[in-house]
């Protein structure tokens, strides 16, 4: 029994289940042996923000075919998490592939830590705690602040959240 709320990401949950079936597949029939692997890879692509609408269609078709043609109960039920989340949370899938957003903030590749230059007082605590050394000072000082604000270079960020936790001024948010 898994409880889901607004902190649950449906594509990520489907992927979690699929990884499990990939491990369990005996390998005898091709829909389960190769199909579940491909489902996993498609979900990986989607949760990494690289998915397309075509991928969503391929995902739905593949899941349906595996359910319809696998040899035993394991393969026939393995795509159920995909099919039911596609049916009930289609919008969330579309957000992942079109808006590149994970509303639950679970898909780390899809989220960004952003420093608001107006709120940042330039204390630099985030930069000190950043393991990726990706936070640097800008030359913009917001009105009323003494020091220039900080900025995160997104391409190097490993989404650890250390800056977010260490900022006492609520200047860092998740987008």
């Amino acid at each position, binding site marked *: 029994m898994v409880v889901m709320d607004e902190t649950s990401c449906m594509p990520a949950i489907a992927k979690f289940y699929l990884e499990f079936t990939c491990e*369990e597949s005996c390998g005898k029939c091709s829909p389960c042996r190769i199909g*579940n692997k*491909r489902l996993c890879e498609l979900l990986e692509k989607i949760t990494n923000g690289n998915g397309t609408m075509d991928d969503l269609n*391929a995902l739905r078709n593949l899941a349906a075919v595996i359910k319809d043609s696998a040899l035993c109960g394991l393969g026939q039920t393995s795509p159920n998490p995909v099919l039911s989340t596609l049916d009930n949370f289609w919008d969330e899938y579309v957000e992942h592939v079109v808006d590149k957003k994970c509303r639950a903030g679970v898909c780390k590749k899809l989220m960004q830590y952003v420093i608001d230059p107006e709120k940042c007082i330039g204390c630099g605590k985030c930069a000190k705690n950043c393991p990726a050394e990706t936070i640097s000072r800008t030359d913009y000082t917001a009105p009323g602040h003494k020091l220039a604000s900080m900025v995160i270079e997104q391409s190097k960020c490993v989404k650890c959240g250390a800056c977010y936790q260490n900022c006492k001024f609520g200047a860092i948010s998740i987008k």
Partner: protein
Amino acid sequence: MINVTIDNKAIQVPEGTTILKAARMAGIEIPTLCYFELDGMKFENKPGGCRVCMVEVTKDFNGKPRRNLAPACATDCVEGMEVLTASPRALNARKTVLELILSDHPNDCLQCEKSGDCELQALAAKMGIREIPFKGEQSHYEKDTTLSVYRDMDKCVYCRRCETMCSKFQSVGALSGVNRGFPSVVAPAFEQKLGDSSCVNCGQCVQVCPVGALTLVDNINDVRKALADPTKKVVVQTAPAVRVALGEEFGMEPGTIVTGKMAAALRRLGFDYVFDTDWSADLTIMEEGTELLGRVKKLLAGDKDVKMPMFTSCCPAWVTFYEKNFPDLLGHPSTAKSPQGMFGAVTKNYFAPKIGVKREDVVCVSIMPCLAKKSECARPELGNGTDQDVNFSLTTRELAHMLKQSNIDLNSMPEEDFDSPLGQSTGAAVIFGATGGVMEAALRTAYEVHTGKTLPKIDFEECRGIFGESIREATVDFAGLPVKIAICYGLSNARKLMEEVREGNPNGYHFIEVMACPGGCIGGAGQPYHHGKSDIIKRRMDAIYREDAGKPIRKSHENPDIIAIYKEYYGEPCGHLSHEQLHTHYFDKSDKVEITK
């Protein structure tokens, strides 16, 4: 009989008929991949694993549609069943499953040995696959080779045909499914190399593999090099079963006899001497028949140590099989070399000096229906330490490739004869190519030598056939002496017979013929792919017996060139010189074997 409706066609089929076979009866061919059957030859692979044959059951036993699609190959018809083999839902599943299989496949048809004969390639063409929507991880395994079989498991579709062939039909058990899930593959146990396993190089796994995962070891370039070398005389010999199958590669009907055209084509390829393994098959009969009579005489004289029954020894897969599995019974098989081996020995010891060429400068090539012969000709005892008696063994398929490369169309070849003196043969030799043939040929000679009388009837019908009992037995009357024989193909049957011998030969056999391949060499692994159509093997067999019936001489001991070589060179069968050159010995290779089932 039960009533079923397939694609709106109503038909009646016997109970226990699968949807696949019922559809065939209705003239509808459902695509398959893993399913494989040699009809009437007791070989069936039905794992239901590929799921290419999925069909929609619109009315099942309960009058309702079936929830899931059904695999046609593994689902029996029930009364009143209605099936759609190409509904949108079935077609979509079939195509998607095929796309999945191709998504884990190298798809390098342009460089693939199987291209043109590949069942996966044909399926992709039939289903009109134009792109593969799934990109992802691909399986990679280390390539592996014996002297006969090349394994590229990146191309394996996990149909398990090879496993069923190796473990059920041959009882060798060298290949089996390993791993689970995506990395599943067929491999020798404990990640061994196939050459270190119990494999006997029969090559039947290659013959049934639908794709290019298991292929033959190609020796065409070795032979081309020899042909291009002006310092070499290149001698070629062709096995009995090749002449009734080679034509298939050139669009001829199965069972077309191309002996004369093949001899002509070999000459066009540049071989200096075009000889015939049939000639040495006659020689084999002289040696093996004499050996049999020798053992029978000892037996009648009350010799308790004589090894009975005697087994034939012309199939190298079978030879390796008993060396690996029955080291305690190595005295039973005839010590006579195979016809390939004898031919090589005669070429290097008799023929080379005769034409005044050093044996090292004579290259002996064999054209065989067989993959095991590639391993056989490399056996150290079949050479002089630096030069093998037979240098290269090509298969029927490789010869066809060579001819095509050289723009030689077999269809347009004239009929030519083999060269002399190792070219003339009898009907007894050509039947070596079919199961029971060696036995029949030996009986024709042994009977006449033993009784001193002419055979009342030359055809031993009881020896013939590919569809009957797994082990055929008969008692032949040698003028008052009942000779008890048995014949089988498939090493699982040979295993049964060997186990009987271990238990003291309760059936009192005198002589047993064993061939590894379905139907004997006509169904060999080097022959054109039959794709499970046992009718093709049957037509090759019919051709063999037609060729025999058409020969002016049909008994080995009446071959004038054989009589001549004994007079000129060997003296007598099983004499001193023939023991040195035409007989061999066997080795305990049981340490090479892991558990077999």
